[in-house]
């Protein structure tokens, strides 16, 4: 995806003129290309497409009492998706994911801007610091949050001392804790694609905007942000999609009212022994994830049709 940015990049010192001519069309697919992509296509087909289709198919099978899948076909599961208990949990999943994504993007843009502007030495250090948390197991980092937000821990005591929370308030086991830990977990996934886009952004354009009378704020919003919009879109998907499927975070730091769809699917599988219901929910989640992808593809195809200059600043 990022490769498409390359022709936006202008050699330093050259004025920002429209990109030279239409992009060179790739030569028609050769058999060598097919061979090269075959393993990954096969992988995707066998380990992604087929299982997804199986999940969709199981949705239409009846469940038996002991956790098996019954014979024949039924619409029972589909009807059960109108379960009056679902809207709350679906809505909660979407808003937690959406707010977490928004916060991640808001924090990542200044970070990425900074990363793209600093000296290479600083940049390497900052990038390293962004990636360092991955050296520790995801689960251990979540459990560390439990220690940090302990009801009698230092952090809580400090907040109480500063009169920011009441002494009996709980920092853990609520939707806000899930949101906090989600932002913490997914932040690097937002920083990296936005940085990749910002790094390719021609900062001469901002100078040009300033020369032409834009304020710094206007230059930021009207030139920089549109210039890195593809990075923003990638970051949005990288955060929003995994957080829709969150299971561990709400399980560990969420309370009785912070259940997300992922937890419900786990309950359907492990407690209720109802694979069709679990599949129904999982299929719903897949559709919910594919929808933003579809919107993105449509958006991209539309962008492709516009002349390159428009894409740069519009």
């Amino acid at each position, binding site marked *: 995806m990022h490769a498409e940015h390359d022709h936006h990049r202008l050699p330093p010192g050259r004025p920002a003129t429209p990109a030279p001519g239409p992009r060179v069309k790739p030569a028609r697919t050769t058999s060598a290309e097919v061979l090269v992509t075959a393993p990954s296509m096969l992988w995707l087909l066998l380990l992604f497409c087929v299982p997804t289709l199986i999940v969709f198919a199981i949705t239409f099978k009846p469940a038996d*009492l*002991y*956790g*098996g899948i019954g014979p024949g076909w039924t619409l029972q599961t589909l009807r059960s998706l109108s*379960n*009056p*208990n679902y809207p*709350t*949990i679906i809505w909660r999943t979407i808003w937690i994911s959406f707010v977490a994504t928004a916060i991640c993007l808001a924090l990542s843009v200044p970070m990425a801007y900074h990363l793209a502007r600093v000296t290479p030495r600083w940049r390497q250090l900052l990038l390293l610091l962004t990636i360092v948390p991955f050296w520790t197991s995801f689960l251990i980092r979540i459990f560390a949050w*439990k220690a940090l937000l*302990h*009801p*009698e821990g230092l952090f809580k005591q400090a907040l109480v001392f500063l009169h920011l929370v009441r002494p*009996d308030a*709980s920092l*853990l*086991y609520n939707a806000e804790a899930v949101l906090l830990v989600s932002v913490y977990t997914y932040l690097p996934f937002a920083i990296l694609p936005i940085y990749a886009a910002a790094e390719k952004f021609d900062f001469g354009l901002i100078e040009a905007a300033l020369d032409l009378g834009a304020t710094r704020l206007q230059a930021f919003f009207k030139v920089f942000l549109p210039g890195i919009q593809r990075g923003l879109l990638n970051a949005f998907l990288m955060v929003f999609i995994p957080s829709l499927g969150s299971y561990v975070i709400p399980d*560990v730091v*969420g*309370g*009785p*009212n912070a*259940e997300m769809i992922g937890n419900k699917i786990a*309950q359907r*599988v*492990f*407690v*209720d*022994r109802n*694979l069709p219901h679990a599949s129904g929910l999982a299929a719903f989640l897949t559709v919910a994830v594919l929808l933003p992808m579809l919107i993105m593809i449509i958006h991209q195809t539309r962008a492709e049709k516009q002349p390159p200059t428009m894409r740069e600043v519009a």
Partner: protein
Amino acid sequence: MTAFRITATVTAIVALLALAGCQKAKPVLHVFNWADYLKPELVQRFERENNCSVVIDTFDSNESMYNKLKAGATGYDVIFPSSYFVDMMVKQKMLLPLDHAQLTNLVHLDPAYMRFATDPAMQYSVPYMMSSTGIAYRKDRVKDFTPSWRMFDRADLKGRTTLMNDYRETIGAALKFLGYSVNTTNTAELTKARAVVIRWKKLIAKFENEQYKNGIAAGEFLLVHGYNGDLLQVANENTNVVFELPAEGALVALDNMAILKTAQNVALAHKFINFIHDPKVAAENIEFVLFLCPNKDAYQYLSAATRTNPVIFPPAAVLDKCESQRDLGPATALYLKLWDEIKAAE
């Protein structure tokens, strides 16, 4: 140089194969058990005595164990289901009939606790431990504790308590609180129990099956609903933690050892079950896990403190109010629906 490299590579491969061969020669027993439910030294002793290795995988609820197996997990030999799951797994033809000729230690089993077993003839399962579910609290932090399920209504403990994330246990606690059977299928009684759990839910920190042990030890939780032996283990390390069985009665469960039909190592699995019921081994295991292994000849080897502990050996009056779960068949759906409504209630 090249010749040397080839020789070295070949030697390395041969050595690796020989090593792999060695490991293969040593039989492996795969055990699927609850966490902290078997003294590790006893496992090592079994490995030494039988020149084998034992691989232990753990689960945190009967449901997750069953569903993992039902979803096609194979490779386990011995599993530890509760009685009502033995029932169901027998109906599902998942368990291997036991060969009593290989289980000479079955004579030591205590008939007094067999009433909680669903397979008293031990055709498919041998009782392992009796557990009960009750309440543990921090005596340094909780004032005026009474051994009653009523404690979950205490507003001063808001956000610092946990109930089990297990629909039979938690709805069962509410049913006991109301004086009903934990196996009721009466919808009026279940509806009342739902109201009680929803009331409790507003005050708890979370539904939790595993982390309540660390939580109460670390003072994160002040009062938790959980298994007696697990919480006695915590109490042994932290004297501020006290466990009690509620006066209204509690759920007791008999956990069993059974061999799966898909077991790879049936003879070794029988040896393992027999080993656990050697009276001295059973006594050592009770001292470690602090649950009651119903092995009447083991009691003489227990320390006085363990033998007289009312949590491990509940007095008859309390035990008479306790009940064990039965497989409810189709009525399970009633409980699941209730659990969904409880989880969704704000």
